[in-house]
């Protein structure tokens, strides 16, 4: 049992290693040009060689992403509570939000650059714009799907809408919120990097564009991998928080029911 469990725990490592091995083998076997697809060994060599620019720019991307994401969390929760509170606001705002979310953020970046200039502000705002929507929708859904019978129980006790929100609505939104945070943080990286690619002085996106124009494909891929690592780490951090803060949501799925 113990052994089986550890095999399961190590599965992510096996799969990742296997992916890189197949990648490497394919590159060598089919003699793929480095300029088309660099082999993992070349990418790792580039990572070692350019470790300082990669680290420096990763740090810029990380902080712009986190800043944008933090704004998205604050505004997302606030708007989610407002939208989940009232059916009228929900109906009125929903089409607007869908429309807003359907606009490709790539198309918005040039506008942001015009407004705020080249730099970190457009990256922060793009990260915010792209990760904002899932948070609002999930918080609002969590609030709007409170069991009507439970609401009746509380209303028959004389509970106000605010009471129901505090005692039931907000706690039960926890699992929805954490689900949204995990999706949102990975999206925030996408937003920040898209913005850096279009116009920035720093960040992994900027580094990749420069490396690309110098035909340094291994460095471009090294940038991609450092982004992937950051995304996985942030996701994992939120997953750990989720496990700790809304543990009941995981265990109650095994509930006796009824």
């Amino acid at each position, binding site marked *: 049992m113990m052994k089986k469990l550890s095999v399961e725990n190590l599965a992510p490592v096996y799969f990742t290693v296997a992916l890189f091995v197949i990648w490497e083998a394919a590159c060598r076997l089919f003699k793929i040009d480095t300029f088309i697809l660099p082999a993992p060994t070349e990418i790792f060599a580039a990572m070692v060689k350019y470790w300082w620019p990669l680290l420096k720019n990763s740090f810029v991307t990380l902080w712009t992403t986190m800043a944008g994401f933090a704004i998205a969390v604050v505004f997302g929760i606030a708007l989610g509570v407002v939208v989940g509170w009232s059916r009228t606001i929900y109906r009125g705002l929903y089409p607007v939000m869908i429309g807003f979310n359907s606009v490709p953020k790539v198309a918005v970046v040039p506008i942001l650059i015009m407004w705020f200039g080249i730099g970190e502000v457009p990256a922060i705002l793009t990260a915010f714009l792209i990760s904002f929507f899932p948070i609002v929708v999930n918080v609002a859904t969590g609030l709007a799907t409170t*069991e009507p*019978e*439970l609401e*009746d*129980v*509380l*209303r*028959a*006790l*004389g*509970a106000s809408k605010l*009471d129901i929100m505090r*005692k*039931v609505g907000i*706690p*039960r939104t*926890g699992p929805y919120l954490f689900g949204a945070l995990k999706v949102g943080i990975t999206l925030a990286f996408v937003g920040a990097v898209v913005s850096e690619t279009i116009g920035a002085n720093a960040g992994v996106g900027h580094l990749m564009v420069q490396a690309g124009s110098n035909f340094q494909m291994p460095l471009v891929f090294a940038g991609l991998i450092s982004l992937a690592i950051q995304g996985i780490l942030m996701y994992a951090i939120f997953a750990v928080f989720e496990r700790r803060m*809304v543990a*009941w*949501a995981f*265990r*109650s799925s*095994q*509930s*006796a*029911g*009824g």
Partner: protein
Amino acid sequence: MIVLDNVTLTYPGRTGPVTALAGTTLNVRKGEFAAVVGPSGCGKSTLMKLVTGLIRPTSGTVSIDGAEVKGPVKVAGMAFQHANLLPWRTVLQNVMLPLEIVEPYRRRFSRDKAAFQDKAMALLNVVGLGAFADRFPWEMSGGMQQRASLCRSLIHQPALLMLDEPFAALDAFTREELWCVLRDLWQEFGFTVILVTHDLREAAFLADTIHVMSARPGRIVETRQVPFLRPRDLDVCYRAEFTGLVHELRNKIAEVRQAA
């Protein structure tokens, strides 16, 4: 004393207005155990919401102790088919929820928390859940969850307990166990009960009075007094008079279903 006087409730449905109740008249004495039985979809649950003031009648009046019900009454405890306990709270915390909402407990909640905890523990002991106070709802069986739900509906000592098929999702043995739990709680505290159910044996075992509703639009078509002496034992269910009463109720419901 709960009085429904010629109450009609109509609400807009998808295919035009739906009349859930039509001219329903019902009296429940203070401290009485009343059961409402009827075919499914006869507006029994609507009746519950009317009495607790969660919805207002289209015409007619609902009054409790002589005062017309105009908004959610603040004296009622409710329990439903699903226990609806909050999964992030322990059983004890779930039971104490009403005390965080209902006055005068609410005002004193943080100050008298220890006393309230003792009160909740005492109630949990009555229903046999004393040892499970610190468990979470999802760690317990359906019957245990329903016991906790009953405690939650009684912790603030309501004058009125509204039960909407509270035992319908339980197996037969657990259900009979919980009948006895409810019987004992009622005999100890003396609150008024309105029990909505489609289990005729349940109604006959627990209630003083059984009201039979017709199919939609719902109306009380018959009211039967239950003659069995209290305290009742489960053995009463196997007496000839009991079986006879259940049979007659059964025929009455078959008749109103036919009419629909």
